[in-house]
């Protein structure tokens, strides 16, 4: 038997999560094709089970490093942690979507396949160090999210969010691509290894090209991560887009860019002379601006949006420390993401359960009296918000602890202090959320809850993630870093 093309090595086991996710989405479409009037129940079930199967197949991969399809697919830590997080947030978001979408009368069956593919894009970003692949994954993620942001076609908020997200996102893509172009021009290489060969290139001195390409790529990735000069979209989009979509946007969709950011920054040690100042400046800007802006917000989703910027700042400053300190930072980074994802997801799960049918932004006012009407929900909100602040035996705290420890071991105490000072400041506006939830309902808005069993499962998953990842830190660590 002859072969027609010289195909690269297929490692099907490694590709399995991708394939499962891709075909889950396609299957959803096929269901629609066969029966256009099908309600979304079948598709939702398929999506959940597809996500779970992909999760299992992803878990089977832990404990090794894999490459497949030439250098296109590369599964290492913390990319694999990121992929697991993406899948978990996918499943959780699908779990909470039904009551929310039905309430806001935007229950379109296209939602589920698009969400699947967005997750697929994020996973591809996590597991490649080829910029072409990262770009394609990024676009798969972004384009799906552009559509999802406009999911509620009756809501002007939703449509406006979609348009803003789209225009600014495409703009950032342009910068990202130009960065890749310069990297390619300087090294003839689309892979991130191109950075590591920076000054070694023979002939002319290509360093300006490398610097420029790094800066431009940071612009593009920084936009997706929500670093500060490129953050304008986040608050508006978070506030306007449907809450369940934002739940994914803030968690699963952030993971891919963050892991890509990690890979990029880990790839540029030879250029740390320029990379470190850029990273430090961006991260400090993100933290300060995020904190200051969040302080005066009354819209809960906007507060969370700014807090996501602050978290991005933490991660970036840690990466800057890593660049100076030359230490292995994969697991702490993944763990921080884990804490961030679970806590944020938890808050959004709660918000999705209490947001009203008119799809307007959720203000602090509408949280009032939560502890009176559903004390359990309020108690869980406390746990998630505490994790965001970094108090108590929750993932957020341990993650911050690891970061601080890592920074101090890298001899960058001042970075640790900057990080902590900002998280102290951040406590104020997080507490405002708790304050609203625990103050009594004097003139509070009437909120109806429609809790299905699925929402309860979603809450349980988030709680277990936030608390369990602390209690079982050691087993998790050994499971993930085992070689």
């Amino acid at each position, binding site marked *: 038997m002859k072969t027609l093309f010289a195909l690269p090595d297929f490692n099907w086991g490694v590709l399995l999560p991708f394939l499962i996710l891709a075909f889950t989405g396609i299957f959803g479409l096929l269901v629609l094709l066969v029966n256009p009037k099908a309600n979304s129940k079948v598709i939702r079930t398929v999506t959940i089970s597809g996500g779970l199967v992909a999760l299992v197949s992803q878990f089977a991969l832990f404990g090794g490093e894999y490459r497949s399809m030439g250098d296109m697919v590369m599964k290492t830590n913390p990319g694999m942690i990121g992929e697991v997080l993406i899948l978990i947030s996918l499943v959780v978001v699908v779990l909470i979507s039904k009551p929310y979408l039905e309430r806001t009368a935007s229950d379109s069956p296209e939602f589920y396949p698009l969400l699947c593919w967005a997750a697929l894009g994020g996973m591809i970003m996590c597991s490649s160090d080829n910029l072409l692949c990262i770009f394609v994954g990024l676009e798969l993620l972004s384009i799906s999210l552009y559509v999802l942001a406009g999911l509620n076609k009756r809501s002007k908020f939703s449509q406006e969010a979609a348009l803003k997200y789209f225009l600014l996102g495409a703009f950032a893509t342009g910068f990202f691509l130009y960065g890749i172009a310069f990297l390619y021009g300087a090294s003839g290489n689309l892979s991130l290894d191109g950075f590591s060969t920076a000054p070694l290139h023979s002939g002319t001195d290509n360093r300006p090209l490398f610097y420029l390409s790094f800066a431009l790529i940071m612009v593009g990735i920084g936009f997706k991560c929500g670093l500060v000069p490129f953050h304008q979209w986040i608050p508006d989009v978070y506030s306007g887009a449907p809450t369940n979509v934002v739940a994914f946007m803030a968690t699963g969709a952030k993971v891919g860019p963050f892991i890509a950011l990690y890979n990029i920054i880990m790839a540029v040690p030879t250029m740390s002379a320029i990379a470190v100042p850029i990273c430090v400046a961006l991260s400090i800007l993100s933290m300060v601006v995020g904190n200051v802006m969040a302080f005066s917000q009354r819209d809960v989703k906007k507060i969370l949006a700014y807090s996501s910027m602050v978290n991005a700042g933490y991660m970036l400053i840690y990466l800057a420390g890593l660049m100076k300190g030359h230490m292995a930072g994969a697991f702490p980074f993944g763990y921080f993401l884990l804490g961030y994802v679970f806590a944020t997801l938890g808050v959004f799960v709660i918000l999705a359960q209490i947001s009203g049918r008119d799809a307007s932004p959720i203000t602090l006012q509408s949280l009032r009296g939560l*502890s009176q009407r559903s004390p359990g929900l309020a108690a869980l909100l406390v746990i998630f918000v*505490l994790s965001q602040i970094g108090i108590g035996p929750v993932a957020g705290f341990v993650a911050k*602890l690891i970061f601080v420890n890592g920074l101090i071991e890298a001899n960058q105490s001042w970075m640790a*202090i900057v990080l902590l000072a900002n998280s*102290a400041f951040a406590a104020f506006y997080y*507490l405002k959320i*708790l*304050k609203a939830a625990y103050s*009594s309902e004097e003139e509070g808005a009437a909120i109806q809850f429609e809790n299905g069993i699925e929402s309860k499962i979603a809450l349980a998953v988030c709680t277990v993630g936030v608390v369990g990842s602390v209690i079982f830190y*050691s087993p998790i660590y050994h499971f993930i870093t085992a070689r």
Partner: protein
Amino acid sequence: MSSVPYLSILIWLPILAGLGLAFIPKLGAGIPKGLASLVALATLIVTGTITALFLTGDAGFSLQQQLNWIPNMGISYFVGVDSMAAWMMLLTAFLALIAVLISKPKERDAQFFGLLLCLEGTLFGIFSSLDLVLFYVFFELSLVPVALMILGWGSGDKGKVALRYVATLFAGSLLMLVGMAILASRANVVDGLPTFNALKLQELVDTKGLWANSWPLQALAFWGFMVAFLVKSPVVPMHRWLNDTYEDAPIGAVVAGVVLKVGTFGMFRFCLPLFPDACRVYAPVVVALGVVGILYGGILAIIQKTPGRVMGFSTISHVGFILVGLFSLNHAGMMGAAFQQFNHGIAAAAVFVLLSFLAERTPAKNLSELGGLKKSMPIFSTLFLIAMLTNLGLPFTGGFIGEFLSLVGAYMAGFTGANGLSVIWVYLAAFGAILSAGYMLYLYQRMFYGKKQETAEFKDLTLHETLIGGTFAILILVLGILPMTLLHSMEPKIDALGRPFQMTHSASGSAAPAGSGATARLVSNSSAPVGEVKLP
């Protein structure tokens, strides 16, 4: 001891019970309170038993339990208890029981008692954790129930108060995190493994020279810890959260009695053993802060308009005494501080409990609306008098022993000039003691004598209330007359803590960081070891 993890049970039983109560929205009237008092009683019995073990005096930690948590960073779930912690836990359990008994929340009582139990559990965690990270976790976590209780059941501008409470304390404690990380990374350098285990770290400090050649780091870490504890205590520039919290928290008793003591307890537990050099160098600074607190609190207490605020400033003043004693760094001062730490818990709580009885009768807070209570409420006024006397440090009450020992220690340190201390501070502190008599008596006079207001028609305490108040009065007198029980059981511990500071020229690694300027100053200042003071 046996393999039963008493301490873990002690920590987690209230927390889990509390969470359970918080999640169950609807229970019959009285059931939450009953459950909560059962749990609190159980913890009181257990802590009592544990404390009894330490009556004979023991410097070490018993009931240790260690579980791996984050092994690659040397973090473990490590609990254990020594004599000082045992007494503090006993105080916690006692005050928690009292708080459960006297609280009558108007709504959501299940949640209220749940949060109260959570607070109790986290306080147990603070007192018994021997791992820095675990300590930090509980330290932060203890903020949350208080804040939520203020939010849900407090009075006044509760949102602002709760925000200020959590944010101030949280900000203060973050520096402690830096300090911990510095400790761990030094341990990594010295020992090859990072660790957050307090005992291990202490061993490294004592034997392996954890701080060798790293004076700035030690100073940074020391102040990281100290800032957290000073804010918690609180000392003067960072005291603003205290008064509001006192006034608006529904459980001022527990806050006053235990929560504040976490600060000074942390100094005993961590600052003294882990940063010996820094303690010596910065002792004058801390003592000065303490004296400033004494005077500031005393003076401002006189002009306050509500009993709650008077007590708030008096607390600042008393914490000043603890600091002065503690950072005399000699036996007498530290004994005094340790005693005062326990005693003030009882004394302040007694006043607050009594004030809460009064608050049930009238919404009036202002002293100008009170007056002439002596006639209508004789039992109340008697009990209040006793509580007040211990606060002003009259002999035969607990307050006297604590303040006196602290001042003696400070005087001795100042007289010998040890650690750069000076006698002038002692004089100022003693003046503060006189001030305390002034504001306390003034308070008593305004409340119970003076112009007769409508408040004079109140009913006296019920039997239930009398029993609770009486318990406090008896405790106060017992502490004043028989202080030796407490002091004896703590003495070995204090001896062990004070040892590094009395052997300045010893060969211990901590005292000989070669070549640093700080060390040179250290050696020149601590000229002579301070002799032990026999207890009265």
